[in-house]
């Protein structure tokens, strides 16, 4: 953990400043709908950061991550509705179920090449969706097939994970995102992170050096599935209603992958940047265009993806960090100019 302390003081200062700013946001935003969009941006950044453990570091392309969002949402909600178990506990139950599923699906597939892994995860996600859509009950747990689950709103209560105001949801998901980002950072700078990077680049060479690539990929998969399911519980409690297509759909899986690729997969801030760019575009175009011109918002979505991949195949985090670096240089070089001369570049 020493590397966390070995940062330049200015970097730590900037990070603390941004985090403080994020915590202050609810004081300036009063509209619940704006709040909702902000929460969803952070939620998608969170999901994509979870995806990043497998999709970014392990160098494979999982396209069925909505399965784990769904497992999280369904586990905590059915436990809450049937036994009155607090979603906070259900959340971790969902996480464990998802992690076990991750082992089950990862153990045979993580050895496969990328294309096969992508297809296997799609098949897993879609198979789970069809299963949930066709089942009314698993034992004592109500699933209600395609109708979905509705959580009755009781009162604002921390134990029930229900709040009348959007603000608590904002803080919960923000803390979740920050923790995942911290974990990403720690992982990137750890042995596992280096092994995964080596395995992703040159699998055969890494294996020849004695690195059990598949084992580390599996660890990444377990972490990713567990955390994604926690996000699923959050989504269920935020919306209080969900159905198979909304939490288990292929669209969600693809959107997570899109956000990661546009932002920059395998980087810490790529998922955040991707969500920050894509979610508002998606929400706004959907609100303003989908009635008059159905489908246009998804056309824009697809075109943005194609154009970004064409000109920035590593995602937008690269040029953006370059601009920020240039900006920083400007700021830090200003005090250096002491005499009244004009600054020339």
């Amino acid at each position, binding site marked *: 953990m020493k590397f966390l302390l070995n940062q330049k003081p200015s970097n730590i200062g900037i990070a603390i400043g941004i985090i403080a700013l994020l915590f202050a946001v609810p004081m300036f935003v009063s509209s619940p709908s704006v709040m909702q969009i902000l929460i969803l941006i952070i939620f998608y950044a969170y999901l994509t950061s979870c995806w990043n453990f497998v999709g970014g570091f392990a160098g494979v*392309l999982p396209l069925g991550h909505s399965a784990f969002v769904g497992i999280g949402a369904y586990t905590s909600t059915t436990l809450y509705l049937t036994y009155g178990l607090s979603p906070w506990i259900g959340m971790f139950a969902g996480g464990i179920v998802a992690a076990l599923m991750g082992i089950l699906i990862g153990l*045979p*597939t993580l050895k*496969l*090449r*990328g*294309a*096969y892994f*992508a*297809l*296997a995860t*799609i*098949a*897993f996600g*879609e*198979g789970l969706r*069809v*299963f949930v*859509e*066709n089942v009314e009950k698993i034992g004592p747990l109500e699933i209600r097939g395609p109708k979905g689950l509705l959580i009755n709103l009781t009162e604002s209560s921390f134990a029930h994970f229900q709040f009348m105001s959007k603000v608590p949801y904002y803080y919960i998901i923000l803390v979740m995102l920050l923790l995942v980002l911290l974990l990403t950072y720690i992982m990137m700078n750890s042995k596992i992170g280096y092994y995964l990077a080596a395995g992703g680049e040159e699998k055969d060479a890494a294996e020849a050096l004695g690195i059990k690539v598949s084992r580390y990929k599996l660890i990444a998969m377990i972490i990713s599935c567990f955390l994604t399911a926690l996000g699923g519980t959050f989504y269920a409690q935020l919306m209080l209603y969900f159905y198979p297509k909304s939490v288990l759909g292929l669209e969600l899986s*693809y959107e997570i*992958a*899109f956000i990661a*690729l546009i932002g920059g997969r395998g980087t810490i801030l790529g998922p955040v940047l991707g969500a920050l760019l894509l979610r508002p575009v998606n929400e706004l175009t959907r609100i303003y265009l989908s009635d008059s*011109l*159905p*489908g*246009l918002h*998804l*056309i824009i*979505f*697809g*075109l943005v*993806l*194609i154009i970004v*991949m*064409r000109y920035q*195949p590593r995602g937008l985090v690269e040029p953006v960090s370059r601009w920020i670096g240039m900006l920083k240089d400007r700021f830090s070089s200003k005090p250096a100019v002491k005499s009244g001369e004009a600054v020339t570049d």
Partner: protein
Amino acid sequence: MIGYVESVINGILMGSIYGLTAVGLTLIFGVMKVINFAHGSILMVGMFAAYWFVTLTGVNPYLALFVVVPFLYFFGFYLQKFVIKPIFEAEKDIREPITVIIVTTGIWYVLDNLALLLFGAEFRVAKTVVSGQMLEIFDMYFLWSKIIGAGVTLLLGIYLYWFLRHSRMGKAVRATSLDREAATLMGIKQTRIYNIVFGLGCACCGVAACVLVPFYYVYPTVGVPFDIKAFVIVVLGGLGSVPGAILGGIIIGLIETVGAQFMAATWTEMLIYVFFLFVLFVKPSGLFGLKQDY
């Protein structure tokens, strides 16, 4: 008993049409090592083209083959040349191009929603001379349009097999698929082969589209169920294998129709995924695939 025989034959007929869509996918994958996620959307484009051709001119739907197939060939050719190639070039040294896979997904989003924007979400049926015509044998009924579809699949499969084995271009395609660098050294223009293969893959979708239009609804997301089935079929048959794709298609068609005799139709979809994962775990190279490919 008759019911089962009927469903088995229907499964083979429908499955061979699934195989037809999968052939294009397997061709593209075999050479470029790219899964074309836009494949179902290209099928949709073909179906709309065939639908409009048949509806506006009122001719026999199979005549649409002569218009739709070349149209889709050039559609695929230029799609690869102007959209996919630049991205492919950027990661051509990587064994598994991931960005390209995602870009084909972007193309899927654009095409499906463009169709939604232009034609609306409603289900359309083309009225053709073969629609609803049945063949009756021993109290069993089969749609003529499905029988013709299966026949076309067989012919196309034989043609493609011959094309890849014996024609000069087919040999160049196989050489590129085996070893890009060596093929380039032998004077084969790699990018041109890719354009042609992508065009051919899309042309296969065009054939499937014309065969489907007489008995299948046309709507903007019609490609999605075919898409996912085609992925399953292609892995089942072995990525890159034409006979594997057709046989895989027939197996999927059989699971679907025979399964529907014992359970609700929605469950058969799940059965396909389970079967797919099972094959992937047991024999990831598929029925006719090479070991090195997975």
